[in-house]
């Protein structure tokens, strides 16, 4: 399938510096994908004329027609089930589920069908499906609009999971995800959709599963993904004022996890804090902490610290900032690890 695709044009252009939000960068990636591969289909609730509730699919239906970009009825399980059937008929589906919390009705199709079909058919029926899922919290939204499902997806054999933290990465990771012949859950940090910054949109070069050092440092490594990367950078800037140099590692790929990248950083810094929005217990932070500990046991000066959402249902407006990892909580954890 991929052989037919001509990417020379996109790749040849030297990317220019542009001021773009993540939401625009994702939109641009979708445009590239729809243009380069006639098998790519974008569908979901309200992704057509409306352009999605976050306008991520804005203008795509107009540009590519209502066969390539179309609305579905309001039924998440069927959206993912339809993706399976489309993939079996040679398409490359890029479904959207409108919000993280509404992925739950589709979990059966995702776990029992999408993630397993290649295995079940011993490679006969690959599932080149990318599920776009507006994810995580921080926008004071209604219930079920602020959930973090990465631990569930990462625990599911057969799925890959990406979570970009800035516009340029959002662009590159989406190109990789959709071009991959494996199913990918692509988690978009809603809280960063409107973050505009000067970026060069370019073809991805790092292989799937590579993390990224967003800010180098030597006293401890802060490990995060999605919107928490930005928060960790803020923490690092504050800590730097006190002479503490924190390295910020953006995991980006939550499956496969860049174990080597984690080890390389923490082997240098000897200390690590992992930060995520999801509740603590059985969150992906436990996996990250364990991977770090398994690999850097002798180097570690302190146990990996976890700063996460609390083990409570995602709360409404005024309580949201008290639920999400705050700058203070991350700083306390840094202090604990430094003083251990």
């Amino acid at each position: 399938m991929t052989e037919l695709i001509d990417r020379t044009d996109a790749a040849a252009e030297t990317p220019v510096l542009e001021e773009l939000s993540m939401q625009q960068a994702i939109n641009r990636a979708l445009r590239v994908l729809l243009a380069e591969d006639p098998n790519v289909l974008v569908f979901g609730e309200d992704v057509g004329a409306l352009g999605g509730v976050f306008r991520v699919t804005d203008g795509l239906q107009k540009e590519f027609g209502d066969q390539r970009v179309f609305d579905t009825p309001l039924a998440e399980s069927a959206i993912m089930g339809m993706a399976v059937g489309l993939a079996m008929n040679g398409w490359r589906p890029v479904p959207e589920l409108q919000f993280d919390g509404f992925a739950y009705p589709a979990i059966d199709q995702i776990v029992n069908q999408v993630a397993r079909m290649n295995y079940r058919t011993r490679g006969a029926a690959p599932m080149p499906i990318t599920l776009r899922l507006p994810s995580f919290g921080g926008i004071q939204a209604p219930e079920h609009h602020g959930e973090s499902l990465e631990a569930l997806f990462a625990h599911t054999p057969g799925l890959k999971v990406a979570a970009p933290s800035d516009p340029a990465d959002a662009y590159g990771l989406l190109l990789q995800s959709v071009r991959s012949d494996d199913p990918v859950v692509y988690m978009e940090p809603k809280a960063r959709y409107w973050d505009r910054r000067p970026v060069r949109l370019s073809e991805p070069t790092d292989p799937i599963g590579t993390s990224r050092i967003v800010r180098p440092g030597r006293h401890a490594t802060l490990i995060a993904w999605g919107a928490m990367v930005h928060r960790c950078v803020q923490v690092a800037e504050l800590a730097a004022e006190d002479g503490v140099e924190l390295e910020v590692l953006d995991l980006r790929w939550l499956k496969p996890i860049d174990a080597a990248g984690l080890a390389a950083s923490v082997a240098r810094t000897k200390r690590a804090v992992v930060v995520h929005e999801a509740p603590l217990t059985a969150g992906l932070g436990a996996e990250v902490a364990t991977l770090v500990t398994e690999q850097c046991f002798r180097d570690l000066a302190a146990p990996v610290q976890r700063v996460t959402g609390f083990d409570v249902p995602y709360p409404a407006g005024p309580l949201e900032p008290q639920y999400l990892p705050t700058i203070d909580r991350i700083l306390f954890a840094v202090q604990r690890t430094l003083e251990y």
Partner: protein
Amino acid sequence: MSTHEPPGRDSIAVDHLPPDLTRALYTHMRTARDLDTEAVALQRQGVFPAYVSVRGQEAAQVASAAALDPGRDFVFPTYREMASALAYGVEMVGYMATHRALWHGGLYDVMESRFGAINAVVGGPVPHAVGWAVGERMRGGEGVALAYFGDGASSEGDVHEAMNFAGVYGAPVVFFCQNNRWALSVPNERQVAGGSVAARAQGYGMAGVTVDGNDAAAVYDAVTEAAARARRGGGPTLIEALTYRVEPHSTSDDTGRYRDETEADRWRAHRDPVALLRAALIGAGHATDEELDAIDARARQRAEEIRDGVSAAPEPDGSELFTHVFRETTQELTRQRRIWEEEVQP
């Protein structure tokens, strides 16, 4: 074959109903309309982060709720049943608190109100109504459960599973679909295969009823009949109330992207349920213009009181993050609460 040509009738009749009742319906609808207007304003002022309007659906909501008995029935709402809540007697400052994002689900007492928590999962609460109803019959009670849902929700698997369960168990449930023609940006034609939600009823062996959702009397009659049937052991009914979402889906929505407003304008101009009921009350001699003006004034006052109440309501304390997770908390949660106290508490 759309079931949705605006019925065209620009008048309704209430003559067969007691004047007390029709005036009460009018009072609730008028109050809901005013409260809705206040809520939209609060959103514009930044007091509410977002709001979902019930404008144009007041008849469907108020008349359906008023046909129930809040002493023994139980209502399972979605996120758009403000007017139902009002008519059912829910404490409205607590209800509106959800729109100020003070607490998902609202701050009213769900069990005392016999009006379930505001539920944002489209289709999700419908099976709850069936469970409640099955349980009600098992204990020999005479209560009826009413489940609200939208035309969009009718596509969800949960709604089908719930209807099939209700049919198999003969449960006393009223499935009340407000078909406001839109599920966010998607119209019925691309949502409801076959074009009619009520037509699905037959496939479950239950009664299916299509009713003009902007005709308070018609809605009241349909729900009264369905509830009576359920109460006497006749099983579930599916009612589809045809109405129209004249406002955007929510204050975050932009209808300009996906629909022409002429249809909405027609509904506003000719099918406004409050105006229709007002005219019918006068026509039937149930109230004079002056009496209705007095009701309007009281409605406005009540709406303003609720508005002021919700604007002034205290924010929940951060410790409430931890209070309601379990009935019996855990050591781990207590430890996390301590972290919150030490590292977060404002």
